[in-house]
């Protein structure tokens, strides 16, 4: 069929008018579509609470200060004036993992460092997220063949977002952070504790 002759008005999706309170809320765009769908299926019960907590969590992700290698310098660059991660409320780098929400695995995870990275992750309180930054943390990168390097940090801890690059540019870094924010937006309240999977 000739694409020009297609009557596009026929294909316009007809949107249901919002009726329930949930649908109205969804219509405003304030809450996540994914969560609303889950709510409708009876998968979760705490949508509004979810929304509030998720918004709070994605708005105040405090990273733990743990630079491993080259990428840590770019982590500093992201936090500095030019790129300013503080715009997302993320400038509070906590030195103690007990007060952090997010771990940037920024750099090569060597065999010797691996148990410490794992320990650091375990010390963080739930809910917690991990962003694996750079080729080394993702897969081993240029050091894939080395005897002393772990081939990917996801071998030891769960990773939420991978950022490629060696090291990733700060823009890529910020994009990764935005991806994580998207992910958190669609999480259930109990998702991190395995309640509603």
């Amino acid at each position, binding site marked *: 069929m000739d694409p020009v002759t297609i009557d596009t008005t026929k294909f316009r999706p007809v949107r249901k008018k919002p009726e329930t309170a949930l649908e109205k809320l969804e219509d405003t765009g304030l809450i996540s579509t994914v969560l609303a769908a889950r709510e409708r299926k009876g998968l979760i019960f705490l949508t509004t609470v979810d929304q509030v907590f998720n918004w709070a969590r994605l*708005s105040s992700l405090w990273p733990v200060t743990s630079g491993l290698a080259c990428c840590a310098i770019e982590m500093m660059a992201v936090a500095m004036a030019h790129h300013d991660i503080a715009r997302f409320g993320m400038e509070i780098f*906590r030195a*103690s993992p007990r007060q952090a929400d997010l771990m940037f695995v920024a750099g090569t995870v060597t065999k010797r460092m691996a148990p410490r990275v794992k320990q650091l992750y375990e010390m963080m309180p739930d809910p917690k997220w991990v962003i694996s930054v750079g080729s080394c943390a993702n897969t081993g990168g240029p050091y894939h063949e080395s005897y002393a390097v772990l081939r990917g940090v996801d071998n030891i801890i769960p990773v939420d977002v991978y950022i490629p690059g060696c090291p990733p540019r700060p823009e890529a870094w910020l994009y990764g952070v935005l991806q994580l924010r998207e992910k958190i937006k669609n999480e259930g309240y109990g998702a991190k504790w395995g309640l509603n999977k």
Partner: protein
Amino acid sequence: MMIANAYELIVYILTTIGVYEPINNIFMSFGLDDILKIIIMLVEIAILFAFVLVTIMFLTWMERKVVAMVQSRYGPMVTGPRGLLQPVMDGVKLIGKEDIIPEKADRWIFTLAPFIVFVPALLVFIPLPFGESLIISDLRVGLLYIIAISAISPVAILLAGWASNNKYSLLGAMRAVAQDISYTIPLALAAIAVVLFTSSLSTVDIVNAQAGTWFGIIPKWFIFIQPLGFILFLIASIAEMGRIPFDFQESEQELVAGFFTEYSGMKFAMFFLAEYAHLFAVSGIIVTLFLGGWNGPVIPFIPVQITSLVYFLIKTYAVIFFAMWLRDTVPRVRIDQLLNLGWKIMIPLALLNLLITGFVVTAGVIQ
């Protein structure tokens, strides 16, 4: 009619709009004489604490914005207009965090310590005059009360550091205690020099003594007759607050996070809040003692309660801004240098200041 404190102010307002008597009569008819008094007191305390908590939240936002300004950045921008909702989000997030108590920690003391830090931080506000008659209680030993209450927090910090069973926490706590003890003395001595002029420990009396001007231009603030005392008090109070350049209790680069290294979630938030409550309180005290409190030019047609509150807040925020500015500008001194400064320079100077003030007051040069 002279209104002494916030309680009387509320009673006055209620009487003016004509609801005090009927309500009181209802309670009186049931034989509950004091119930309205208690209700009003609870309300005023609730208002105070709500005000303080909102101020603390605002201060965390302000701190981040001031840092950003100094460092040519923007600071929080995404959450709310200009990032104003950032502190709310931080709070909600911290409520939803897992609360970890380390295996080897002393559970009870570990849990208790944040409360012991947080409660005195709020209690300090009771004798603080926010404005003409805007004071919860004009204690006759107000100044002494403030200094005494502030001295509780090192105990709690020591408890927190010890209970965490972590070497960094313990070191941070010991530093905090050493610092607080050595700086409370010059702090108190500098304050006493002011008291010599007013012959009263009541905060309201101190503020009232600073009303008026010399030659119509210079306000009669104690900063002008006690410049040395002001500087000593300022330095000592920054040390008491534990802010850069004297932030040994947490000193991130040395002791990870100091005495609250092991704290997470809401307990950590309480330390955080107490810190900012302390900042606000101490700035308020500096204003009360040296910067004329709520005194300022009278503006006609506006109730003096409102103008005085505005003057007080402007001055307090100026002091807070100074503390934040200092934090972003200077490095941290070393703990032994700090103690040297406290014992070898500040205390002798404070004593000298007291001595001179005594002579001046006795000779009657001023007043």
